[in-house]
């Protein structure tokens, strides 16, 4: 059984805003019936203000697909279209206190339904570049298509390269066989053969940041999550940065509580997005580390 948060269960067992919305003026149908997840999002938008007066959904899908749809409708009601479009899939997952890696695509689907419904309201054509492959790396929720595209685009030839560019393989390492298989395939397309002993490329692209710029960026991310932590009676502090490992200390109500690993995982995700590289966040207290970095 999946390890669903209480919030996911709540939105699944008692979905908000389910069913047809009479008088909807923006509708988005997305998903894939072969994968077993598809969603229709219906919006009622006030033309003068662009405010979403009401939002409903119908979903063919699993527990987290239904919960993500329900959460999305709650999150966007009362927002203007432009505000609503700022809701990212990570926001949807956060609102639900996290989703298992295999289920992150449910939140992506919610985000895409929103784009499709807004485009439909505005009379635009929404086209999607979404292509989903089988999940390869569970630690970082990276699928085969993403790995394949990255290998192709950057001429990668080692597992370490793939980890540097996509994060896949950088945790428990159980997915390395799967990554090697993709390397073998893509490399043979360009007439090379995979050599397990090959040297990885230079360091991962760091966006040309100096150490100081990097630390400032890290500080900025921590700053941005601090208000939320404080609200829960906690705080986070940067202790040291050693290459790809970022040491922090957690204080207050958050430290040691069950939420810590979850919170850290979210912060780690944000840091990786900002820094565009694979990093690991390590709390100085023992125990939380393994939970935060990888749950195979």
């Amino acid at each position, binding site marked *: 059984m999946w390890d669903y948060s209480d919030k996911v269960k709540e939105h699944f067992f008692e979905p908000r805003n389910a069913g047809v919305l009479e008088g909807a003026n923006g509708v988005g149908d997305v998903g894939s*019936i072969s*994968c*077993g997840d598809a969603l229709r999002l219906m919006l009622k938008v006030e033309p003068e203000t662009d405010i979403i007066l009401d939002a409903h959904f119908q979903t*063919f899908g699993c527990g987290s697909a239904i919960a993500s749809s329900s959460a999305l409708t709650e999150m966007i009601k009362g927002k203007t279209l432009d505000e609503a479009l700022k809701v990212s899939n990570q926001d949807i997952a956060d609102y639900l206190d996290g989703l298992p890696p295999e289920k992150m695509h449910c939140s992506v689907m919610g985000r895409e339904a929103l784009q499709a419904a807004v485009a439909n309201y505005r009379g635009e054509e929404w086209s999607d570049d*979404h292509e989903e492959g089988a999940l390869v790396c569970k630690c970082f929720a990276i699928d085969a298509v993403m790995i394949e595209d990255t290998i192709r685009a950057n001429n990668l030839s080692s597992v370490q390269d793939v980890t540097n560019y996509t994060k896949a393989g950088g945790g428990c390492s159980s997915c390395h066989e799967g990554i090697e298989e993709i390397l073998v395939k893509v490399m043979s397309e360009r007439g090379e053969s995979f050599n397990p002993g090959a040297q990885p490329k230079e360091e991962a692209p760091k966006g040309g940041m100096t150490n100081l710029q990097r630390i400032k960026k890290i500080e900025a991310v921590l700053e941005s999550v601090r208000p939320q932590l404080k609200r829960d009676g906690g705080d986070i502090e940067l202790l040291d940065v050693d290459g790809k490992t970022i040491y922090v200390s957690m204080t207050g109500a958050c430290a040691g509580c069950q939420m810590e690993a979850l919170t850290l995982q979210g912060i780690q995700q944000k840091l990786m997005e900002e820094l565009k590289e694979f990093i690991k966040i390590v709390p100085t207290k023992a125990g939380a580390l393994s939970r935060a970095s990888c749950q195979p």
Partner: protein
Amino acid sequence: MEGIYFDNNATTRVDPAVVEAMLPYFTEQFGNPSSMHSFGNKVGLAIKKARMQVQELLGAEHDSEIIFTSCGTESDSTALISALKAQPERKEIITTTVEHPAILTLCTWLEKDGYKVHLLKVDGKGRLDMAEYKKLLTDQVAVVSVMWANNETGTFFPVVEMAELANAAGAMFHTDAVQAVGKVPLNLKDTKIDMLSVSGHKLHAPKGIGVLYLKRGTRFRPLLRGGHQERGRRAGTENTTSIVGLGKAAEMAMEAMHHENTEVARLRDKLEAGILAKVPRSFVTGDPSNRLPNTSNIAFEFIEGEAILLLLNKFGIAASSGSACTSGSLEPSHVMRAMGIPYTAAHGTVRFSLSRYSTEAEVDRVIAVVPEIIAQLRKLSPYWEGDGPAAEPEKAFAPTYA
């Protein structure tokens, strides 16, 4: 209320009598059966007894044809790899599209080493085409591996007949009988089946114990090499407690065989008829006239299986589903796809699998609960309108990116 466990094809509860038989072998009888002293001696005798109990259940001619392994998967791997190693001149395998991953994933991997794998197709009811099979049976085939009963639908394959054909063509025949053993009477001595896999936890023995039946005279190459356990055919100190448990479970399965094929089958039929009568747009998958007595696999159209399971779980009912989401994959069950079940139904398949512990009251309860659950989820489905599917459901809802 205690939960209702209708997921016995996934695993079964260990019978209390089995636990009791095992307990002394954790404590007083902890010896190594290979040891010379008396600590080991009694254990050796207990294993001998268990081997005979399993022999009896399988209808094997000799007790030395029973090799204890660590699980059904190990038995499957041992059988196929042995057949290939023992006949290096033959490079082909015949199996089916609907095997368990214990066979299919192994075959995909063997393909990378240059073996040719033929996958027999099934029809809408999950049945094989014997003409196709006969055509593929050439002198290149090292081994045919066909499951006795399918784990998802319970559908039987005609393995006894297929083994005869393989034998005539000089190929070895293996069957993954993990789901059949203990549920249907077997008499292997009268068949041409060379190898057969058993898994203890499907018949009320513990998890992590299996058997490979190896007909006397079948050429064999062990997978695990080392000590002389199991006559050198499966090295590694015996899992004595579980072997004793499996022996007891085999004996009990023999005793319950009639009950399994009458009373359990009756309850299964009642459950199935009760659900189908109350839920529109639902149907049985597989071949209802030729399947395990305990299994019913029902497709509920236009909704998704994981969501059904979560709601069933809320009512204390355990079952399983062929939906993509329950396995974390991108496609629904390969068994449902192989039978050509459309996506809108394949994702909504639910397998109910009973056991000799299942009761009439449990069946009645499930019949009462399921229709509500299905109706509740259909209310959320974009393919559903009011009391029935939207007119032309596939057109009414055609999401972007398929």
